[in-house]
């Protein structure tokens, strides 16, 4: 079990030895420093607090500054907790690299998806719109249709799917195969697409 923070570089293709094209996403993952370790006695759960990227010291808040000073680690831009490590094997200040993963592993990748802005129900919830374009129908092609009943309940139920902000939500894609690892460049190639735009921060879990 292992996890790492990375940055999405983009998609490309590589070839398998038998000539098949494999679509891959490149993630620049790690090296991440362990900033702190959560333990059962003090925090009630076990986890590694892992930092990724760089941040100027003048942009740190005082609590964060204290955290990094205590760990004797350079300030990181992004902090995440990973519960899926065996914490006994690690200590504060250790480096985590892509070598945590091996080719052929199945990983989960989580990230914020691309924001789509204010979208209608057809795009946002997969509604099919109202009716066809013929038989006199003229302006309801992408409309939601009825959103409720009549005198009972005289209101719209909470959670009814309607138009609104779409995208920019946490999305996880599981069972992605690790196709290749390039340790000297801190690159991990996973088969298929992952959520988020290029340069967005992603979390990889095994």
């Amino acid at each position, binding site marked *: 079990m292992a996890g790492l923070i990375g940055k999405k*570089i*983009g998609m*490309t*293709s*590589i*070839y398998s*030895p*038998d*000539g098949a*094209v494999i679509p891959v996403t*490149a993630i*620049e993952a790690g090296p991440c420093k362990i900033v702190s370790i959560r333990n059962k006695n003090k925090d009630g759960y076990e986890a590694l607090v892992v930092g990724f990227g760089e941040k100027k010291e003048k942009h740190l808040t005082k609590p964060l500054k204290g955290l990094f000073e205590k760990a004797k680690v350079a300030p990181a831009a992004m902090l995440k907790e990973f519960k899926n490590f065996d914490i006994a094997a690690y200590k504060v200040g250790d480096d985590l690299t892509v070598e945590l993963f091996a080719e052929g592993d199945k990983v989960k990748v989580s990230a914020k998806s691309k924001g789509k802005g204010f979208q209608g129900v057809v795009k946002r919830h997969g509604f099919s719109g109202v009716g066809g374009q013929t038989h006199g129908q003229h302006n309801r092609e992408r409309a939601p249709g009825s959103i409720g009943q009549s005198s009972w309940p005289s209101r719209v139920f909470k959670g009814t799917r309607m138009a609104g902000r779409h995208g920019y939500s946490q999305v996880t894609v599981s069972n992605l195969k690790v196709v290749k690892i*390039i340790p000297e*460049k801190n*690159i991990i*190639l996973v088969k298929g697409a992952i959520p988020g735009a290029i340069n967005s921060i992603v979390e990889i879990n095994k």
Partner: protein
Amino acid sequence: MDKLNDLVAGTANPDFAQFNVGDRIRVHVRVIEGDKERIQPFEGDVIGFKGSGVNRSFTVRKISSGVGVERIFPMASPKVAKIELVKQGKIRRAKLYYLRNLSGKAARIKDKNVR
């Protein structure tokens, strides 16, 4: 994007014979049958390039027993063992898709090296 290009630069095939659209080339294709591998040549005219970088591919067209056959090869494919240049063609277009509508004598490409 540069990072991405660096990443796949090593995977492209070493340069075979340089060829352009309109040239007649012989592509040596690796064919795997069971656990044996053999080379099968495919000779025809290059009618276009498509894509860029690692995804660049080219289309080869030939007439095989009266039927037009086209094969698309990725430039970096490990299935392409060798590319031989047979003849250079003299053409005025980047894509020779019009050859599909021609047959017989009309579908020939002029030789670049013959005056």
